[in-house]
């Protein structure tokens, strides 16, 4: 990756992260402002409620001074009610006013008069639910509470009536439905705004990763398919950017790879044909120079040479002792069938050599004897790595010890004695067979 590309990439990451940070800072700022604003409004409301109770206390004292008296007086209640109605506006609606007197004997406050007025506004059921949720969330010594009908805020004033013993307490519950409503909708808007921003951010983030990773997934998937050997496959190019260019180049590379593989296969089949031809020529030459004594056969022709005549015996050759066993079995068969035959020792030498070669070059193999009229065929097959025919001429035509290493020096011994030798070898195994015509 070049420095410029790295910078570009780092830049895009930086942009995303800074935008996220900025948005969060803004949200926190907004939230702080809301909390501050809410606190101010709340304090105002409480302050108003206190003020209301003070005003009412002054009013009540005024009534009292004028000597109208108020204890259990219906008229007084009505007066207060009228006064409350007069005072009431949208912000300051006293829904419940209580006058409490101090009882020195019980040392507690006793309710003297209670005046109730109706709420001007009410909360919908949804608003009530949100408000109760808000109440349970924001616990504390809030002075706003729900009195059953609606939300109120309480203000209380204690008035000294001249002597220690007669004290008066004026408690006013001011309607706070409007305030609560405002808070609710402000909070709802804030939550909506906040979640909207978060959703947009998440979408942006997802989108960023989707646009980056989706094509990469395609690429990786495609590479897997191609690496499994399917060179027909092409990775779809859906983008016109650097990644798209890269995928296109990759596809081109696969195309080239496919072409070169086809070329190679063609070349290989030509080589195979060529090798087949060379083998045929080689076989004919060997056949001619040995006057038919050495026959090279390919895998297809082999069965007709070894699945013929009468099979007399079979020995598995896998260890040194099996070589002796092969000789013993051969000797027994020759003595049984051709008691007049005089060169048995030479045949045993050939059997010994061939069996030893099986052990040395393939580790293990099979030996069996076929009788075809008065000819005996000794066959040795193995699944070893095969033999190199190019050493054949030297093995056949040079007598002696030192030149015979590659095919095993027993090879020339066999060839020099037997009447016919059949040879087939591939990388999957070798078959060596030799014929001896049993004339005494």
């Amino acid at each position: 990756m070049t420095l410029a590309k790295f910078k570009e990439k780092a830049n895009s990451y930086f942009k995303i992260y800074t935008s996220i940070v900025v948005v969060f800072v803004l949200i926190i700022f907004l939230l702080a402002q809301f909390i501050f604003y809410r606190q101010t409004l709340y304090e105002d409301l409480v302050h108003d409620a206190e003020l209301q109770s003070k005003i009412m206390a002054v009013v009540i004292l005024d009534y009292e001074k004028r000597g109208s008296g108020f204890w259990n007086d219906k008229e007084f209640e009505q007066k207060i009610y009228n006064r409350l109605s007069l005072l009431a506006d949208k912000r300051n609606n006293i829904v419940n006013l209580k006058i409490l007197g101090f009882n020195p004997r019980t040392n507690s406050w006793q309710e003297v008069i209670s005046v109730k007025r109706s709420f001007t506004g009410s909360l919908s059921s949804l608003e009530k639910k949100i408000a109760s949720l808000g109440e349970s969330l924001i616990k504390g010594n809030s002075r706003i509470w729900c009195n059953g009908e609606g939300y109120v805020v309480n203000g209380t004033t204690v008035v000294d009536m001249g002597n220690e013993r007669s004290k008066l307490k004026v408690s006013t519950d001011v309607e706070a439905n409007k305030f609560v409503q405002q808070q609710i909708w402000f909070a709802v808007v804030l939550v909506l705004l906040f979640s909207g921003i978060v959703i947009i951010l998440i979408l942006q983030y997802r989108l960023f990763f989707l646009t980056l990773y989706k094509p990469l997934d395609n690429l990786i998937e495609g590479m897997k398919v191609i690496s499994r050997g399917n060179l027909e496959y092409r990775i779809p190019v859906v983008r016109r950017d650097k990644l798209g260019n890269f995928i296109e180049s990759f596809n081109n590379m696969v195309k080239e790879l496919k072409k070169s593989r086809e070329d190679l296969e063609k070349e290989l089949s030509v080589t195979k044909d060529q090798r087949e031809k060379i083998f045929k020529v080689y076989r004919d030459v060997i056949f001619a120079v040995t006057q038919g004594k050495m026959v090279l056969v390919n895998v297809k022709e082999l069965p007709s040479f070894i699945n013929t005549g009468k099979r007399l015996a079979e020995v598995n050759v896998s260890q040194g002792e099996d070589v002796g066993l092969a000789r013993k079995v051969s000797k027994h068969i020759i003595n049984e069938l051709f008691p007049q035959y005089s060169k048995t020792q030479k045949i045993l030498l050939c059997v010994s050599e061939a069996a030893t070669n099986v052990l040395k070059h393939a580790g293990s193999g099979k030996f069996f004897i076929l009788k075809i009229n008065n000819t005996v065929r000794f066959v040795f097959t193995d699944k070893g790595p095969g033999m190199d025919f190019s050493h054949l001429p030297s093995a056949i035509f040079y007598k002696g010890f030192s030149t015979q290493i590659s095919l095993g020096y027993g090879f020339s011994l066999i060839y020099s004695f037997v009447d016919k030798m059949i040879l087939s070898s591939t990388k999957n195994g070798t078959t060596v067979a030799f014929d001896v015509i049993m004339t005494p």
Partner: protein
Amino acid sequence: MIQIETSNNGSVNHIKLTGELDISTVDEFRQSIENVPETTNEIHLDFSGVEFVDSTGIGSLVQIMNQLKARDIEVKVKRIPVEIYEVFDLLGIPELLGKGHFECLK
């Protein structure tokens, strides 16, 4: 199967082989010769009891003879049956190591 009898007569070591010398017995044969005393100058191998030998057996014999030659020990193969000698001859061993080392039973 091979039987190897060793007898020491001064600096000449006599080894008599009876049986077959092929891939299954060459190791035993090689060991018996490698175990001759250090004082040995000459080894006489008696082949009269050898019933069979193939190129593997002869190969190991040639190898041993070359090794002993390096140690200045002369090896003579004596009383070789005619059939066995033919194998030696087929492989060109007498020419390779010197005809004097091989004595055929007539």
